């Protein structure tokens, strides 16, 4: 199960944070800070998996943004790595050549996309096309 998803830039600013487990306010900031610290210092040649407290963080860097997923220790890391990539592809398609600024100004839309992709900590849909279509429908209603 995915425990949380974080999108952070190199400086540590959180661009997106979605938690599927309950955490206190103070805990939130601490967690974000710690994950950032763990992830930002790693050499690109190293593995994409780090151990974090009693779970694992699977992360990948795209340009200036780190996409981190915290999962249970028994989960399949490679599969989640693929899912991160799928998510980025969806964003890319939706915003056409997405950049960090797009994510900042349209954060509410990013959340919507995320909610179509992952629910309750598990994958909801694996087809890029399906998600994009759905987003289109939702946009029309807005």
């Amino acid at each position, binding site marked *: 199960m995915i425990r949380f998803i974080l999108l952070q830039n190199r400086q540590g600013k959180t661009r997106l944070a979605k938690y599927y487990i309950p955490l206190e306010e103070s805990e939130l900031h601490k967690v974000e800070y710690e994950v950032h610290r763990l992830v930002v210092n790693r050499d690109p*040649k190293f*593995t994409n998996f780090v151990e974090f407290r009693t779970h694992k963080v699977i992360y990948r860097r795209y340009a200036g943004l780190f996409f981190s997923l915290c999962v249970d220790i028994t989960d*399949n890391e490679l*599969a989640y790595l693929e899912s991160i990539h799928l998510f980025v592809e969806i964003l890319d398609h939706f915003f056409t050549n997405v950049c960090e600024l797009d994510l900042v100004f349209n954060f*509410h839309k990013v959340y919507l996309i995320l*909610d179509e992709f992952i629910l309750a900590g598990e994958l*909801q849909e694996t087809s890029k*096309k399906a998600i994009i279509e759905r987003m289109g429908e939702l946009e029309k209603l807005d």
Partner: protein
Amino acid sequence: MNPFSSGTRMRDMIRAIRACKTAAEERAVVRKECAAIRAAISENDQDYSHRNLAKLMFIHMLGYPTHFGQMECLKLIATAGFPEKRIGYLGLMLLLDERQEVLMLVTNSIKQDLNHTNQYIVGLALCALGNLGSAEMARDLAPDVERLLQFRDPNIRKKAALCTIRIIKKVPDLAENFIKPAAVLLKEKHHGVLITGVQLCTDLCRVSDEALEYFKKKSIDGLVKLLRDLTNSPYAPEYDISGITDPFLHVRLLKLLRVLGEGDADASDSMNDLLAQVATKTESNKNAGNAILYECVAAIMSIEDNGGLRVLAVNILGRFLSSRDNNIRYVALNMLMKAMALDSQAVQRHRATILECVKDPDASIRKRALELVYLLVNENNVKQLTKDLVDYLEVSDPEFKGDLSAKICSIVEKFSPEKIWYIDQMLKVLSEAGNYVKDDVWHALIVVITNAPNLHGYTVRSLYKAVQTTTEQETLLRVAVWCVGEYADLLISNAGMLDIEDPITVTEADAVNVVETAIGRDSSDLTTRAMCLIALLKLSSRFPSLSKRINDIIHRHKRSLVLELQQRAIEFNSIIGKHEKIRSALVERMPVLDEATFSGRRAGSVPNAVSTSQGAPPKIPNGVVKPAPPPLVDLLDLSSDDVPTSVSVGGDFLHDLLGVDMSPAPSQGTNQTKKSGTDMLLDLLSIGDPPALSNSAALDILSTSQDSQSAGDLSGKSPTPLLSVKASTSAGSSSMMDLLDGFGATPSVPVAVTDAPTYPSIVAFESSSLKVTFNFTKDPSSQHTTLIEAQFTNKSPNIYSNFVFQAAVPKFLQLHLDPASSNTLPASGDGSITQTLRISNSQHGKKSLVMRMRINYKVNNKDVLEEGQINTFPRGL
């Protein structure tokens, strides 16, 4: 446009915030915005509520408190329009979590939305419930969600499936209701619904055994067919990822099959072919393919044994291990740990590669590899592996050293074939990474050292050499100092040389130098310095010629600001200076420390009142008093002489080091605490009668001059007299009276008795109801001290209870009362109470003993007091 009115568009607010150059500016902007939003909320401004909530969410993401917006979310959710609802739910998921009570208020809204006609709204509600639902909400809304599992729109079905996962996680009891609907989902065509359905089934099986049984019976074949079709399916552009159709579904299906096949041979059989097919056919040049292979291997490892498949799996792992991609290697190391349990031979083949991974620059890989290595160690390869690991220890990063040294130590401890190798390895580890090593590791080392008497010489010489070269490692220094102190004579004399050693010449002065350097280092901490002081004491006894020099060194610490060091310095100084007679007895060789008890204690972690790292064995009678239990290594080394005793007090090692065993023998009440005229502290001196008193006739129970400083300087009271006589009490009885038990046949007659001149007994006191007799013996080592055995007899026909004897003596005498044998005096001389008194006469020869006594007892529920003065002591006492 004023950027701070609530009419601001969200984009502009974001722009304004991003334009701020300092944190203070940003705070100001945010404050203004929050104020505007709050005003709008309290005015119930409908127009911009949508926008305001969006702004609020952004502010929340920046990290500012936004509690005031929570009710706004609820209001928005309750409105009819889709955009408002959408932003409301979004705000809800962002600003709240499942533990907030506010969430309860939403339950009704969600319920209504779940039954809405607009399927997008239903979707929103499911999403919120799935991400946020608490247990109560889950219970309330479960029926609605169940219904939605069969909704016509696949989007809703898949959301409902995931929502169900959350529900059963929160309320496992509801799982049974969802089993049938979930099984239906497995027959779907739509991939989204399929994958969510598979996930739901996996979680159902985890939560409920009933579900597990159901799926095992009904669904396995269906699943197998599904996976087979998927693997064989042609190119499907919608789901294709690097040439594989929907790898996510592959992975999930494999996971479900694993859960179903675990522990069940039949189920496993039906999957075998499929797993073989997947394992062989999947391409592994892309990450997606590897993900599937990984999951496949995990499944093979978990299900019931099938030799061929296992071999296949281990081969795949071997391939992974030699891949250049770090991710793959990591995953392989992880899986190999599981494979160890099944086929350790196969994993051993890859030992070299794994060892290489321990040295990898990537911390994650190092950790995994180290754990795997730990599992690989067995008796055959332990020496080689340890050598490699120790070599690596020298070059490893400091952060890693701690882990690595801990692992090496546990390997060495578990598998060491012989003691000399153990000691060698530990020495190496300590020299390299001593500072990272935990305390009980070097404690264990010392225990082992003492248990290998033939290696003492070798050990101390190796340590000596090591300390010459390495000086920063604190633990190494401590062990070295301890050994030098203990085995200094072996060091000097090169005794017990093993063939492999080169002879070295170490003079006495050199040995002292080592300890002196250690104590003088600025970086030595309290423990090391304290150990050095004791070592110096031992050295002064073993090398009397250097006594003066050693005394000087100790003298320097008499002014130490640390109480422990100061105390030790003063005491040792005093021993060296004034009490040479007992010094050698004090610091004789430590006995062999019992490994079994040590490891037992370590495992059971008995709290140490006075902790000694070596677990001062209970056998040693310990008359030493330490007022403040130091967390340090040595209580004074105790003379153990011929400790033949096998009296060991179970796990009660440090039972009563104070020796004043105030726990009375069963029959005694609080009487023994009343000792008139006697300073309580005096008891510390002599008594030290630890319950585990040796039965041997060997005497040296020492009360050393430590006590002198705690009890004030008892002039004229040399500690020694108290020794000998006590020794032979029967163990377990804390009362001293048995010593001079006039009545019972005393098998172990104290040595003193035969030597001393005998004095006639006297009737100290006699009344119509009570008779008190005194029997005298002189302490052989001191003329001043007399031991009196008092005997009380009841002359009346009534039983006396709560019998207490108190005595007072003039100032030139010192009196000590031992606990009485009982405090009930049987009637008519049917038995008696005996009690031992010790009197020390500072005016021996000039004045004789006098005593006032007072006796309290209870007869027929009446308290009686008898008093008297005894002047009839024989002369010469």
